[in-house]
């Protein structure tokens, strides 16, 4: 880990609020250590902006270890930057060359309104989960954890789908701003497990309907979502969602009134 110093030029999207007009502004990032993470580089730029009394560049971030899904913006048109399987907080400056010009833009999608600068509102993804991305299992009602056997391969496959961090890179990189990869990962994760199979149909119907209602686009199978996914969520999830959705639509029965899930 030989640390080197590089200088960069940043063209950053600055936008004061959701309704205001935004524009690109240029900043110099000088003396950047290649051992720094990308966000630490931005911290450094912000530190200098604050010292000058200017507003720092706002971006979402929290755990800085690639798991909370808070961070994410476009670097030169790539969601989370040039490195595969990497969130922007895990992207380190050794991936860049001295003198590079980097364009930083927020995720752009109707369903992800910009809050400020590089920060967007991804609550649409929460509402998709809310519409059905769960198993109805009240606290205390569970049987012993080992009473239902799950083949290891099945459990592993469900886990792979469940590793989605909800960062929104799939939507950002899709030319249609579609949320099919996100939605299908959750549908797959639960549909693959015996516990989740029970309400798989209701889940598929409700989650797809919510996804469409949020104003995301349609999938045209370009594969950009999976290519830019920091957790390598596979396109086969979308295929599974499509199957589940077709099956559910064929079997569709109107939900009976009573009960509910309150």
């Amino acid at each position, binding site marked *: *880990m030989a*640390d080197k110093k590089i200088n960069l030029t940043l063209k950053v999207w600055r936008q*004061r*609020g959701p309704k205001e007009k935004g524009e690109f502004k240029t900043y110099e990032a000088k003396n950047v*250590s290649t051992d720094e*993470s990308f966000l630490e580089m931005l*911290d*450094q730029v912000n530190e200098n902006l*604050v*010292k000058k009394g*200017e*507003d*720092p560049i*706002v971006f*979402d971030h*929290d*755990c*800085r270890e*690639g*798991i*909370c899904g*808070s961070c994410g913006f476009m670097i030169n048109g790539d969601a989370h930057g040039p490195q595969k*399987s*990497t969130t922007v907080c895990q992207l*380190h400056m050794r991936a860049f060359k001295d003198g590079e010009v980097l364009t930083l833009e927020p995720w752009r999608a109707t369903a992800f309104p910009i*809050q*400020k600068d590089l*920060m967007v*509102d*991804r*609550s649409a993804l*929460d509402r998709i*989960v*809310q519409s059905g991305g*769960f*198993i109805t*299992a009240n*606290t*205390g*009602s*569970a*049987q012993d*954890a*080992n009473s239902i*056997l*799950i*083949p*290891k391969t099945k*459990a*592993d496959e469900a*886990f792979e789908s*469940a*590793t989605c*961090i*909800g960062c929104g890179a799939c939507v950002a990189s899709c030319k249609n701003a579609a949320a099919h990869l996100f939605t299908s990962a959750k549908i797959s994760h639960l549909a693959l*497990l015996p*516990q*989740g199979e029970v309400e798989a149909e209701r889940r598929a119907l409700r989650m797809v309907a919510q996804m469409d209602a949020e104003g995301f686009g349609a999938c045209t199978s370009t594969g950009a979502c999976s290519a830019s996914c920091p957790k390598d969520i596979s396109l086969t999830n979308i295929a599974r969602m499509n199957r589940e959705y077709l099956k559910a639509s064929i079997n569709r029965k109107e939900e009976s009134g009573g009960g*509910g899930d*309150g």
Partner: protein
Amino acid sequence: MASNFDSRIPGGPLDSKWTQHKFNMKLVNPANKRKHSVIVVGTGLAGASAAASMGELGYQVKAFCVHESPRRAHSVAAQGGINAAKNYQNDGDSIFRLFYDTVKGGDFRAREANVYRLAQLSVDIIDQAVAQGVPLAREYGGLLANRSFGGAQVSRTFYARGQTGQQLLLGAYSGMMRQVDGGNVQLYSRREMLDLVMIDGKARGIIVRNLLTGEIESHEADCVVMCTGGYSNVFFLSTNAMACAVTAAWRAHKRGAYFANPCFTQIHPTCIPVHGDLQSKLTLMSESLRNDGRVWVPKNKGDKRAAKDIPEAERDYYLERIYPSFGNLAPRDIASRQAKFRCDEGRGVGETGQAVYLDFSDAIKRLGRDKIAERYGNLFQMYEKITGENPYETPMKIYPAPHYTMGGLWVDYNLMSTIPGLFVAGEANFSDHGANRLGASALMQGLADGYFVVPYTVSDYIANNKVEKVSTSHEAFKAAAEGVRAEISKLMSVKGTRTVDSFHKELGRLMWEHCGMSRNEKGLKEALVQIPKLREAFWSDVRIPGDANEINTELEKACRVADFIELGELMCRDALERKESCGGHFRDEYQTPDNEALRDDQNFCHVAAWEWKGASQPPVRHQEELKFENIKLSARSYK
């Protein structure tokens, strides 16, 4: 002293205390539950599980989180696993053994009754998680798999590769989102709690800042449950997420909630070492790695050869040497301290000499690279991304880093603080881990509190107290909101020259140096001189650009740092007063000849709970004596 400073441990034998207590608690009629409201602050494991469970019961729950989405709470980053006394491995585990290991691991500074309940509930958590679709690791036969963790000689840790926290949190989060869908939970995201509102001596609401608009909002309820996590970020560099803060807990403390054992902090032994001044956080490498990784340093001081060039005979596998029966799986406080000792001796490795090796070459030889990749693939990948080195080929370099705080708001057996109606769950309370937390026990505690304790005890509180409806137009709300506004405008009006981070870093250095892995009277006294100076400098020279009525990340940080500075002072005070070494609290003056922590059970077998007396007066230290009736107090040995 607050009349509420009573642990309320139920009578009767240890193994039936909780069952009996549950029976004795009052219930709220199902039809009446919807008339009662509960505020839950924080949506990590404890908060999300509490909100989901209470929503299921029918209460009107208002859940608050600082993040854009509740799924981003820092529980998501927990890697290794969750303990449960299932004894699926037939290796001699039991509820009593988990209880014993936890009390011993905590160096006998936790309540027996609480820890026993935790061990009992651990088995229900696994059942609940699996029912929710949490994809825990399985064997080929379809049964759940286990791994070993520090401080235990049984395999009782359930896991989902290196992402156990994420998977458990998504389970709790999905349960909560189901209640949002059903209308029983109302979600308030991007809100930060800045004050607790009390009416007639009871917690009745909170004041939050809407981080998007800057608006100061008031929210009322019948009671408040705080699940706001720990305060490791007082050290600036820690494994915690950037937004982790003590602010909510500290504001409650200032309203009368005692703060217990603030000096009990956990320094995790296996983290990626610091690389430079601009570093913003430290990254944990899961303790599970110590299942297969061997920790060593060169035997010769200042040996600068590459790891592969150091022959076997010149390596010191010091944990295996000193603790033959636990080896590399010695508890965290011990493993951290030993790493520090080795580096202090001048046998540390890497450019800075502040690191030790965690070596997988033997395990790769024994099990093959694929098996290791299956167990720890994502951790190895993360390590490589950060350091640019491939841990399959060269040993990892690791060093201890602040990770977890055992201290927190004092709570009784019902998880209620000294403020009636204020419950505290998860890492935010002090309850179950004593002076050191064992690996894979934080997830267990967060979920036990949220799923299985708080829903009962909150019901009991509501049934026993005739809480009258209040409105946010009540004087107390107005005054609290005004106080928050005044503080914010005071911060904004300083218009000094230094950034918030510069103060935070300075505080972090002071704390790490004087109240870190080892502490002594001189250093602590020094810190107690320096910290007030820092506080003064902060309030007279901090610079916050922008406006308070919009997204202002510097202002958010400033509010948090202001509280960290005050907390730091209390931590040092607490560390100074506790004239013994126990668990993570190591005083240089109190150690055995072979450098182990030397407890003083005569004088310090108690919880220290601090009462805030206002900015101008020193806090008052109260004691809750700890009684050990089921386990014999003994010197902790892992040899």
